[in-house]
């Protein structure tokens, strides 16, 4: 199947089930000075899926995310999140949508003068000031535990944490308001393989338990293979293909082939195959997706 066909199929899919789309991007155009990053970019993120976004360095993965969450105003195009247009909305507008998403930035972007627990409390305090402080503390506490941080990390300041712990703390803050939509910008970059795998598992299990939609930017092939439902490939200033990894492998775009069939891609495929084999031999995980 060629990438064109996948895109075609995508369009048909969307026309049928519009309400199943969490994020809809149409005709997006972004440029910095004379350099165009996106041109006529279309993308749909379905509700309840983990969509991995990949692309070479400088293809504008982060810019795409920043456009969607309103940190960057695109030159052209439409962006709808949960059916609401996000173009040109000020920071204090579209609050109903903002309450429904959580964002994990690359470095965690924790507020450095607040403790981890206080960081988690910030969105709760901001959007629901009438929740009483004791309950708020309890909520922060279980969110921190939920992301796999030890209880001792809560009263620490971000500067006292390791990179992996910062990411988890950032995730706890992103999850503070029980968002429906989670943006993760390279969540496993800079983590050791064990930590990265644990983070992936955590993301997957949270996504299942809470029914999250996840927009995940990554360079990590293991993450793509192990947790993403679909993968969107950014190249040539647009999304050249969206689909499961198997569907992408069936396309003949050179970048996609090189990406997934390069030495690292093959290693990740082999790892996943091994893992699947082991699971089939042992006790298989019960499918427990919650929608």
């Amino acid at each position: 199947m060629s990438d064109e066909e996948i895109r075609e199929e995508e369009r048909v899919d969307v026309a049928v089930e519009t309400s199943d789309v969490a994020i809809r991007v149409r005709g997006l155009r972004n440029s910095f000075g004379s350099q165009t990053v996106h041109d006529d970019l279309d993308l749909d993120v379905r509700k309840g899926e983990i969509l991995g976004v990949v692309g070479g360095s400088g293809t504008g993965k982060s810019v795409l995310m920043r456009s969607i969450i309103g940190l960057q105003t695109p030159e052209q195009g439409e962006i709808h999140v949960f059916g609401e247009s996000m173009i040109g909305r000020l920071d204090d507008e579209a609050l109903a949508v903002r309450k429904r998403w959580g964002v994990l930035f690359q470095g965690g972007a924790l507020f450095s003068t607040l403790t981890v627990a206080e960081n988690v409390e910030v969105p709760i305090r901001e959007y629901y000031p009438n929740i009483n402080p004791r309950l708020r503390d309890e909520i922060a506490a279980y969110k921190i535990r939920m992301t796999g941080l030890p209880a001792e990390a809560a009263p620490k300041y971000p500067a006292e944490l390791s990179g992996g712990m910062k990411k988890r703390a950032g995730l706890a803050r992103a999850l503070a308001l029980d968002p429906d939509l989670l943006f993760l910008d390279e969540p496993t970059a800079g983590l050791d393989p064990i930590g990265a795998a644990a983070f992936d598992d955590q993301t997957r299990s949270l996504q299942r338990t809470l029914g999250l939609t996840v927009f995940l930017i990554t360079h990590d092939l293991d993450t793509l293979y192990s947790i993403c439902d679909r993968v969107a490939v950014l190249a040539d200033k647009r999304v050249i293909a969206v689909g499961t990894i198997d569907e992408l492998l069936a396309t003949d775009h050179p970048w996609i082939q090189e990406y997934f069939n390069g030495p690292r891609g093959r290693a990740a495929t082999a790892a996943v195959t091994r893992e699947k084999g082991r699971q089939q031999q042992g006790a298989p995980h019960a499918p427990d997706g919650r929608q």
Partner: protein
Amino acid sequence: MNQAADLAEEMRDGGKVIRLSGSLSVACLHDLPDRLETIEGPVGAIDISGVTHIDTIGAWTVHRTARRLDCVVEGGDEDSRRLVDMLSTLDEPVSIRPDHVSPLTRVVGQIGEAVTTAGSTLLGLLGFFGGTLVASWSLIRNPRRFRINAVVQRFEVVGVSALGIIGLMSFLIGIVIAQQGSVQLRQFGMEMLTINLVGRLTFRELGVLMTAIMVAGRSGSAFAAQLGTMKLTEEVDAMRTIGVSPMEALVLPRTMAVVIMMPLLGFYSSIVAVIGGGFLCAVSLDIPPITFFQRLREVVPITDLWVGLIKAPVFGVIIALAGCFQGMQVEANAEEVGLRTTAAVVQAIFLVIVLDAFFAVFFTWVGWN
């Protein structure tokens, strides 16, 4: 899905049951957690079968109520039950902020900390001065490592761009001194002495002192913020690993630029202040400029100029060192950059004024009065 959460209490099989209904999500909870807190036991069960939608905050509310009243959670679909169960596994005491200490202990602790900080800062500053001297010595022995471009670039930032603001400030100070002086001296009929006042004060003290304060505010703070940010982004560490000494690449060019610029700016400031004084004398005291400058040459000894020019580079060293030292002390977080920048300016100005007092005594002692 957006139906507000509600509760009802009812008796069943001789026990009280709390029946929850509606959407138990953070947006729809409203005052439900507070209402649940007012319910007193004994309660047999919490029934969540009427709940249409639940998120973790709702599930936590259910769990904490169940824990407090020591009752079971029943009803609801499998997903909701699983969510409540999952949260109950996460229930353990977590402290939100560092432990609270009593105010007395804190005040005593802060005093002690302030004393040790003051001591260690002074020592650190002295050590930093030593480090700068060592770096200068190695630079003198290997003059090819001298970063002329960096220094010249600082000349512009520290000196040339400061000309406007320092000029304006000095001009106004000159006017103020002349005006206030003339009001007092008029009572003795000695308005001509205003010229002595303006001339001697600006060359000897105010020109350099005001310049030092302005440079500390403009450049000392900038040094601290620049170096502090570079520390935070690990640029300084990167430099070290490449074999570039931060002392040589960052501190020395800045120090040198300030040391060279301070006498020039101080002299310029004095001249402009004298012009300001002369302007006021011409306008309000009817002393023509020619007379003003003739008289100035008679009453201001050349030693006054030397006093100012000798002090200026010393003040420059203090400003640059305080700025760079505080910048290099930044660790951990962005807030510290702000604190260190403030500390740099305060310390620089304080030390400049202390040293100025010593200089005043010293120059009187050597007979330059």
